């Protein structure tokens, strides 16, 4: 609370960035310990969580006041005009402090209290059980077993405790392999395809440098390929673009030569050895020794493949460009499409999707196991493994299954949520929308296969909201070990039970589980199947969206259908009873009245519900957001 100097400012204006109407909403701005709250004159509330704030900007003073622009991680952009500059300055400073916390313990999750007792909280955390999930896949079995090598996080700090490896891979092999892999992330099982007996495995890059080999690592890969009884060949997918690896090789050769020269000099000079310079050079030498990919000559039975997904920095600046284009006032159609093109965003989304399809085909068509890695194996690798599993297994397309998938390939395998989402005030170069891209790929699949998913778009958006909100413990920290040290399960709540309680909101009314139960999705990645995800990147720009929701109406119809069918059954059974009882067949009044009298009128009342909730400030009524003043004609 020490950061808050002003808690309430009156007569603040809120501008809509896509509306031309000069009539801004006027209201009161409140600053609480966790939220920024704006209540307009119609008593409509806009809540902004401090953790969602990506940047705050104070613009030059104007005649009407001091403009304050807040950009949020969930792509909300609000533009306030605060009448007095001092108030604006106070709010600005407070938000700067409040949006960037230095310690995990200061995040919202540690104070959030949904009024549950400890056992409820614990049950929430136990809702998703990964051991159960591996059992569902069919492991352990005769070829795969649970390894206790990482039980104490001794081999790899960023992996979970429980890892599944080929039965014939002994502990020394695992340990040896882990030393040869970046951050100790040796090849382990991510998904097991029971029918094909083929596996999706994941790891980080080998530290092969220029030419180094590791026999244990070669053995481990061989063990993985042997664990597949049908196809002895396995694919090794390096998700990085080939051209980047090649240019890296070219420069590394030069750097290598320099380092050899410098390091010999260092060892001869005592002073330099002690200095910072030496540390820096060591790091360089380490880096040069690291990085690399499997040499097909050294590993038997592998097929090596680059798939070309760009790194986190490219992705971060791509999204940046996309948002810049979309924020432009009075954007023309041509500028929009040329901006969309030059941002490269959809190209990156397509690359992720193509990689997942490559993986799926290797398993379904060639029956081959696949090992996926990138550099550290926690960004692109997570994208490809999880998306591949989603294509292969319809379970992951259910609400609960999707939670399991995120827990498995993202949370447990150490996708660095806190760094990628910038939960704490840390290195901005570590921030990257890797998980957002995964959600967008899933959204594209829901668009192409409208009946294949149990959940709808709102579910994806809600999850996206919470990876940044820091309201629940699931996404805090960067790996399981860190989460255990933070005692998240004792101090915070899990998001999943809350989503499940609300699951009605997230159901896809068109979902047809029967026809999709065994189906593998084969998306078509022709360029025009990729569209700009307006509902994500303009979530809060209400004027840009369709003004009527098909999903809601179908959902309601579905429910009414069920209700009416039950009514019919009820009535029919009553009729039967009556016929049995009264042979003269006199109909009682009570029977007629049990027919729901309101049901036929439901249909019309549903679609205008939103609009009646809206305060009528115009002489003419409009559907929410459908107002000529909101649009630039």
């Amino acid at each position, binding site marked *: 609370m020490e950061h808050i100097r002003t808690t309430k400012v009156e007569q603040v204006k809120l501008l809509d960035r*896509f509306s031309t109407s000069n009539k801004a909403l006027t209201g009161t701005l409140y600053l609480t310990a966790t939220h920024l709250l704006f209540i307009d004159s119609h008593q409509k509330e806009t809540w902004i969580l401090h953790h969602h704030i990506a940047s705050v900007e104070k613009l030059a003073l104007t005649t009407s006041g001091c403009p304050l622009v807040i950009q949020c991680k969930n792509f909300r952009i609000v533009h306030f005009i605060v009448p007095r500059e001092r108030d604006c300055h106070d709010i600005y400073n407070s938000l700067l402090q409040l949006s960037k916390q230095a310690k995990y313990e200061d995040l919202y999750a540690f104070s959030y209290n949904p009024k549950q007792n400890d056992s409820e909280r614990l049950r929430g955390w136990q809702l998703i059980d990964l051991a159960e999930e591996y059992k569902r896949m069919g492991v352990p079995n005769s070829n795969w077993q649970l390894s206790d090598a990482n039980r104490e996080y001794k081999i790899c700090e960023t992996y979970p405790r429980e890892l599944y490896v080929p039965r014939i891979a002994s502990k020394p092999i695992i340990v040896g392999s882990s030393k040869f892999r970046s951050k100790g992330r040796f090849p382990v099982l991510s998904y097991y395809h029971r029918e094909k007996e083929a596996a999706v495995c994941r790891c980080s890059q080998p530290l092969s440098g220029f030419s180094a080999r590791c026999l244990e690592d070669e053995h481990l890969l061989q063990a993985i390929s042997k664990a597949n009884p049908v196809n002895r060949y396995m694919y090794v997918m390096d998700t990085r673009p080939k051209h980047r690896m090649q240019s890296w090789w070219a420069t590394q050769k030069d750097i290598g030569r320099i380092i050899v020269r410098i390091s010999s000099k260092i060892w001869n000079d005592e002073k330099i050895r002690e200095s910072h310079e030496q540390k820096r050079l060591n790091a360089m030498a380490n880096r040069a020794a690291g990085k690399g990919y499997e040499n097909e000559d050294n590993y038997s039975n592998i097929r090596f493949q680059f798939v070309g997904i760009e790194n986190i920095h490219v992705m971060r600046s791509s999204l940046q460009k996309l948002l810049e284009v979309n924020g432009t006032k009075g*954007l*023309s*159609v*041509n500028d929009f*499409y*040329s901006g969309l*093109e030059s941002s*490269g965003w*959809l*190209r990156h989304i*397509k690359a992720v999707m193509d990689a997942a399809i490559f993986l799926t085909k290797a398993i379904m068509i060639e029956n081959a196991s696949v090992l996926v890695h990138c550099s550290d194996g926690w960004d692109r690798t997570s994208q490809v493994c999880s998306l591949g599993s989603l294509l292969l297994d319809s379970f992951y397309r259910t609400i609960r299954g999707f939670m399991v998938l995120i827990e498995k390939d993202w949370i447990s395998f150490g996708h660095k949520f806190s760094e990628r989402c910038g939960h704490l005030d840390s290195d901005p170069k570590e921030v990257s929308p890797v998980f957002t891209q995964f959600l967008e790929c899933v959204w594209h699949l829901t668009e*192409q*296969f*409208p*009946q*294949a998913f149990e959940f709808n778009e709102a579910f994806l958006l809600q999850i996206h909201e919470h990876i940044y909100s820091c309201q629940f413990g699931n996404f805090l920290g960067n790996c399981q070990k860190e989460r255990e040290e933070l005692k998240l399960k004792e101090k915070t709540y899990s998001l999943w039970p809350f989503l499940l309680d609300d699951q009605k909101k997230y159901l896809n009314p*068109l979902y047809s589980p029967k026809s999709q139960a065994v189906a593998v999705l084969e998306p078509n990645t*022709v*360029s*025009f*199947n990729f569209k700009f995800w*307006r509902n994500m990147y*303009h979530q809060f720009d209400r*004027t*840009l*969206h*369709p*003004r*009527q*929701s*098909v999903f809601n*109406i*179908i959902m309601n*119809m579905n429910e009414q*259908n069920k209700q*009416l069918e039950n*009514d*019919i059954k009820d*009535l029919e059974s009553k009729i039967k009873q009556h016929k049995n009882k009264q042979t003269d*067949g006199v*109909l009682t009044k009570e*029977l*007629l009245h049990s027919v729901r009298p309101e*049901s*036929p009128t439901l*249909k*019309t009342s549903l*679609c*205008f519900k939103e609009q009646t909730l809206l305060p009528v400030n115009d002489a*003419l*009524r*409009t*559907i929410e957001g*459908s107002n*000529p003043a*909101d*649009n*630039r*004609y």
Partner: protein
Amino acid sequence: MEFSELIRTGRAQAELLRGPGAPPLRGTLCVTGHHLLLSPGPQATSDLWLLLLRSVDSIEKRVAGDSGTITLRCKDLRVLQLDIEGVEATLDIARSIEALSSLESVITSFPFFYRPKGLRLGDAWHFHPPEHYYKRVARETNAWRLSEVNEDFSVCPSYPRAVIVPRAVDDDALARSARFRQGGRFPVLSYHHAPSGTVLLRSSQPLTGPQKRRCAEDEELLRAVLAGARPGARGFIVDTRSAQAAKQARMTGGGTEAKAAYPGWKRLHRPMERGRPLQESFVRLVEACGDLEQSMDRWLSRLEGCRWLAHVKEALSTACLAAQGMEREGACILVHGAEGTDSTLLVTSLAQLILDPLSRTMTGFQELVEREWIQAGHPFQLRCAHSAFSHARPKHEAPTFLLFLDCVWQLGRQFPLSLEFGEGLLLALFEHAYASPFGTFLCNSEKERCLCEVRTRTHSLWSGLNQPKEQRKLRNPLYVLNPLAIWPSVEPQSLRLWQGLFLRWTRPPEPSEAAWEKVWQIVTDKEKTEGSQPTVSASEPQP
């Protein structure tokens, strides 16, 4: 002229490839006066395959060895490939198709021979004329009358016999105003917006010319419009050309209304693309949509380069401007460009769709198309002579009507419950506008249709579409009457490529079609369960 002179071969063995999603067909190929037939032979299970020759946009032949390949690109954007046995047969069939598909004569076209079962000639022809709309206007206001000044099409050859005009202006004044407007298209009522008491008018450009001519009757006409609207109403003239283009038109005898001559009226310029550039935009978009191998960057840059969606935005925002002027500012609106038969109609018809709930129903929309496009003299025959694939030098072709349908589709996407018709109707109208067994879209004006006796000798598309068996394809199952105006968003992020049309034949549609089927099923289930309740209680014996 006999068709038989143009048919060079009787029949040939061929295989037909219909693109993704449809299995190839083998059988005997045969060219008739109006159709290309493929008969799969007596033992085959599939039916006769039939293609209207009129719908062929371009034809390409290749021969290799003793067989040939003909690629037919159709006006509905379908691409068909025929593999034919025999070089001679291939060339003959190709030549026959070329000759027959480009016949210009209206009265030998297929609609004059088409006699489907279950329809009677002349059934729906009296369904939508302006008289019908006038009845509605007359109920709402007394300021307008139905004029038959154009009874014999002598005042304006592209207007229908009857038009709605201010009651205060007599037929002589109308005729004089017509002489001051290009093609005789004097200002007439397009739509009366009852809630605000304002009107939407359309016309062609005034013939002011370099001497800045004036016309007292024309000025009187527009004055009478304001006098007949709600008291104190202002007027806006929405010119669909840029201010500069309007000025330049003076050199060729055209021009725009001088401010001083029309008190109360204010001119707004909203430049909209038309003619050749619009056709080129369409061609380039279709080209881009046909390339399945292109990279993401290439696709996005072609989508941008063709500018189609920019034209959609222009059209929608100009229509919204006109509608906003009426509904919010209580102003009367006159829309015109140059001839007043293209972008003008685009704006007036879209503005009505935005404002008028009735035009969003199945029959209301058909009436709108009939009244604002067909009767209003959009030259369909010229504009839709060729579609996007033709190699012929474009003369008068322009996809104005397609642009209208695209805008309607965008409205339907933004207000999915507010249109009674679905994408199916829009696709059908697109197909029929370019090539149809029905007579509705034949000719360029009512006058021509009269001369060709289209109304008595061909069937109306509307009676074809309104048959019960077609309804499921055309209707929006989720429709609920929405009494309000629908204001769309015209930001580029809100507009989308109409994949159902432009990518209709290039990608397999199964998943989305299955989903649509499911929506229908849910809706019909609902109707069934609701409907079955009374029957349950009705089956009870009464006391």
